[in-house]
C-alpha cells in the first residue's frame, strides 16, 4: 500500500483553503474579521502550556503535529495537549470552555480551527482573534436528506484529501418500500447539503480514513454475537464538482464567487493556477446517476478475539509500505490490529491482537508514522505494541499456507507440532471445518508457516495457537488471529 509522506494536515488540504474562502464571505457579513486572511493581521500568539501531571479525560483526539494534539474531553470541551517525543503528557489546557454535545470525533481545519459533530450539526470552531481560544463556531451543515425526519449524524467528522468533510448518518428510508439505509456523506464547502457517497444496510458507528483514501467503517449489528463487522472501501471521488458559492444568505454583503476567488488568491492560490483538485474537478463531468457504493462488511472481528467487547474507535497507523488499522475495545481494553489487503476489487486481510492497554481507550490518533496516542477517562496513553510482550505480530497468505510472525523466537519443540494449532475454515454461511496443517519454522525462529491446502474463496481462516510459547517460556498475549479471504490472489 502506498504511503504518502506525512505532511501538515492543517494547511495543505485543498478543502481547507476552500473552507477559508467560504468563511471569509460569511465572516464579512457578520462583521467578524476573517481569520488571518489580511496581510495586516497580527501573528498568532504562542500559548504557553503549563507543565502538568494531571491529565484530562479524553473522548476524541486529533493529532496536530508530532507532539501536539487537540482533544475533546468528557464534558464536550475542546483542549490542546503537548507531549514529549515518547508521547508522555507535558501539559494541556482548554482550547474552548464551551461544552458541546459532540460525538467522539474531532478533525482539524485551517488556521488552528477544529471541526466536531453532534447529532444535529457539523460545527467548525475558529480562533478569530488569535488569542489561543476558539471564539467563533460556525454551523457548517445542519441539513441533509432525512434531517427533518430524525436522521442524525452517527460518526465523524473526517477531512479527506479531496476537500471534503465526511460523516455518517443514521439509517433512513429514502424511497417508499425500500429498507432503511445508513449513509456516509461528504460535505464540500459551498454546498448546502452533503452528498451521499456510500450507503450501508447497517448503521455506521465510527469511521477512519487512511492517507491514501481507504475508508474504514465500523458497522453496528447488535443481534449478531459472534463478531463485529468492519467495512473497508476506497473513498470514491466527488460526484459533483465543488462550488465556491455560499448557499445562504444572498445579498450585497455576501461576496460573489469572483470576489471569493480573490480571497482565495490571498489565501495562497496563485492567480489563474488551479490546484490539482480543481483541475480534476474541472475536467471531470458529473456522471449521470452513478450507483452508490455500498459499505458492505469486509471483515468480521471475531468476538473471541475482543473478549466479547465491541470495537468503539478506529484509526489508521502508517508504517513502512503499509497502513494498518487499529480498533479499540474499551470494555476489554484490547486493541485489535487489522492489516488490509486488496485483491481484485475486494478488501480482505488479517486480524490479530495488537496490545492490551492499561486503561480503556476511547480515542486514538496517529501522532507520527507508526506512533499512536490513545486517550480515555484517565488521560492519554501511547498505544505501544508492548514490545515486552510475546504476541503474534503478523499473519499473511502464502501460496502454500499462512505465515505467522511472532515477536520473539518460538519454542521449536512445541511450535513444530501440528496439534499446537487449531485452524478452522469458516464459510460465509458460518459453517466451520477443520484444516489440516503442517507447521514449518523458518530459520529466524520467529516465523512459522502453517502449510495447508489452498483454501477456497469467501473463507475466514481462524487460527488458534493453543500451545506455542516463546523460546524463553513466555505465553502468547493472545492465541487467536484470523485471515479473511474473499478471493485468491
Amino acid at each position, binding site marked *: 500500500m502506498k504511503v504518502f509522506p506525512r505532511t501538515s494536515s492543517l494547511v495543505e488540504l485543498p478543502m481547507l483553503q476552500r473552507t477559508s474562502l467560504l468563511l471569509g464571505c*460569511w465572516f*464579512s*457579513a*457578520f*462583521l*467578524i*474579521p*476573517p481569520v488571518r486572511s*489580511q496581510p*495586516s493581521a*497580527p501573528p498568532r*500568539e*504562542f*500559548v*504557553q502550556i*503549563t*507543565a*502538568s501531571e*494531571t491529565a*484530562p*479525560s479524553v*473522548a476524541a483526539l486529533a493529532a496536530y503535529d508530532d507532539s501536539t494534539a487537540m482533544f*475533546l*474531553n468528557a*464534558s*464536550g*470541551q475542546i*483542549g490542546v495537549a503537548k507531549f514529549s517525543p515518547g508521547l508522555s503528557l507535558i*501539559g*494541556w*489546557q*482548554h482550547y474552548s*470552555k*464551551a*461544552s*458541546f*454535545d*459532540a*460525538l*467522539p470525533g474531532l478533525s482539524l481545519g485551517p488556521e488552528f480551527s477544529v471541526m466536531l459533530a*453532534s*447529532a*444535529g*450539526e457539523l*460545527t467548525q470552531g475558529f480562533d478569530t*482573534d*488569535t*488569542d489561543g481560544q*476558539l*471564539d*467563533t*463556531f*460556525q*454551523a457548517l451543515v*445542519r441539513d441533509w436528506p432525512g434531517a427533518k*425526519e430524525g436522521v442524525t449524524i452517527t460518526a465523524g467528522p473526517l477531512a479527506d484529501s479531496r476537500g471534503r468533510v465526511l460523516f455518517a448518518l443514521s439509517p433512513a428510508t429514502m424511497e417508499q418500500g425500500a429498507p432503511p439505509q445508513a449513509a456516509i456523506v461528504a460535505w464540500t464547502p459551498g454546498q448546502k447539503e452533503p452528498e451521499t457517497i456510500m450507503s450501508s444496510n447497517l448503521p455506521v458507528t465510527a469511521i477512519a480514513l487512511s492517507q491514501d483514501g481507504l475508508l474504514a467503517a465500523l458497522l453496528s449489528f447488535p443481534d449478531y454475537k459472534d463478531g463485529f463487522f468492519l467495512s473497508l472501501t476506497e473513498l470514491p471521488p466527488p460526484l459533483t464538482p465543488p462550488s465556491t458559492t455560499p448557499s*445562504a*444568505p444572498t*445579498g450585497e*454583503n455576501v461576496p460573489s464567487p469572483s470576489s471569493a476567488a480573490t480571497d482565495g488568491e490571498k489565501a495562497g492560490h496563485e492567480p489563474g493556477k488551479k490546484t490539482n483538485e480543481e483541475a480534476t474537478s474541472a475536467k471531470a463531468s458529473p456522471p449521470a446517476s452513478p450507483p452508490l457504493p455500498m459499505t458492505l462488511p469486509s471483515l468480521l472481528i471475531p468476538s473471541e478475539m475482543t473478549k466479547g467487547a465491541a470495537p468503539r474507535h478506529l484509526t489508521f497507523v502508517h508504517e513502512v509500505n503499509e497502513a494498518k488499522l487499529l480498533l479499540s475495545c474499551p470494555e476489554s481494553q484490547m486493541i485489535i490490529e487489522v492489516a488490509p489487503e486488496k485483491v481484485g476489487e475486494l478488501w480482505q486481510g488479517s486480524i490479530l491482537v495488537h496490545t492490551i492497554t492499561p486503561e480503556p481507550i476511547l480515542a486514538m490518533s496517529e501522532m507520527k508514522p507508526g506512533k499512536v496516542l490513545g486517550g480515555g477517562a484517565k488521560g492519554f496513553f501511547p498505544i505501544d505494541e508492548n514490545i515486552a510482550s510475546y504476541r503474534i505480530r503478523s499473519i499473511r497468505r502464502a501460496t502454500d499456507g499462512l505465515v505467522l510472525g511472532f515477536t520473539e523466537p518460538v519454542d521449536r519443540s512445541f511450535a513444530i507440532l501440528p496439534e499446537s494449532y487449531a485452524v478452522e475454515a469458516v464459510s460465509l454461511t458460518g459453517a466451520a471445518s477443520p484444516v489440516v496443517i503442517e507447521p514449518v519454522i523458518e530459520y529466524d525462529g520467529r516465523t512459522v508457516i502453517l502449510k495447508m491446502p489452498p483454501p477456497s474463496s469467501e473463507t475466514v481462516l481462524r487460527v488458534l495457537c493453543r500451545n506455542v510459547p516463546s523460546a524463553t517460556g513466555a505465553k502468547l498475549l493472545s492465541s487467536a488471529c484470523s485471515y479473511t479471504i474473499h478471493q485468491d490472489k
Partner: protein
Amino acid sequence: MEGQTQETAPGASGSQTTPPPAVPTAEVTSSDTVEQDFLKIDSFLTDPPLPLSLSRKTCENFLTDKDLLQAHLDTGGSPRPLPGIFVIESPSAACQIIWDPQTCRMLGVLSKSEARMTTSPVGKAPAAAAPSAAAPSATPPPLTASGPHPLRRSTGAYGDPVYFGFRWLHGRPGFLYTIGSLIVEEWIWLEDPTLLRQHFRIRSPESDVIVLLPTGWSDEVTATAGTIKEGVLTVPAANAAEFAITTRLKPAPVPPAP
C-alpha cells in the same frame, strides 16, 4: 452544573500561562473598515458582571406554544427533545437561559431545577444541578417564549430564520443568524442574577426594527433605543444597528393558597 464537572486546565488561572491578548486595538489601518466596525461594536464586550458558562445539550421539550412547537415535532406530530440547544448559566444565578439554533431565538429562562438535560454522546452530561449556595433563594419563574420569532414583524424578516453559528467572546455568547434579509447577532448575558440582557446587532438595517417582547413581560423590559407599546419594541432604523433589551426577571410568584 457544568461548572461542577468541567475540567480545569492546569495553570489556567495561574501566572505561568501566557495571558491571552485582549481584542486587538492597534495596527488597524483606516481602510480596514470591517476590522474597525468590529472593534467599535465590540466595545460592549467587556468581562460580564456574572461569570457565565455555555454548553450545548439536548433538553426535554418543555414548549407549549404552538408556533414554537411546530419546529420541534416528530413525524407523528409529538413533541421531540430539543437537540443541540444552548444553555447559558452562571454559578451565582438560579436560572438557565435556553437558546435554540433551530428557531434562532431564546426559548426561555428556566430555573435550573426545571431544565432536564439528557446525556451527551461523548460523556455523561451533568444532570440539572440544584442552585448553588450563592444563588438567590427566590427562584425566578420561567420566562418562556411564545408566538412568532421576535423579529418577524420587522421589514425584510421573511421566511424561517437560518442559524449560522455562535461566538464566545469575553465570556459572553453571541448567536449569529439571518432572518430574511436581516443579518443578526444576538448577544445574551446576565447583568445580575435577575437581570437579563439581550444585545442585538443588525447589519445595515434599512427600516425600523420591530421586536415582539415575550407575552406578559413588557412591563419588565427596558431598551436602549426605541419605544415599547403593547408588548412591541420599535427601534428606529437609525438606532437599529445596535440596541439592547434588558429584562428584569420577576421574583417567584407566591402560589395561591389551597
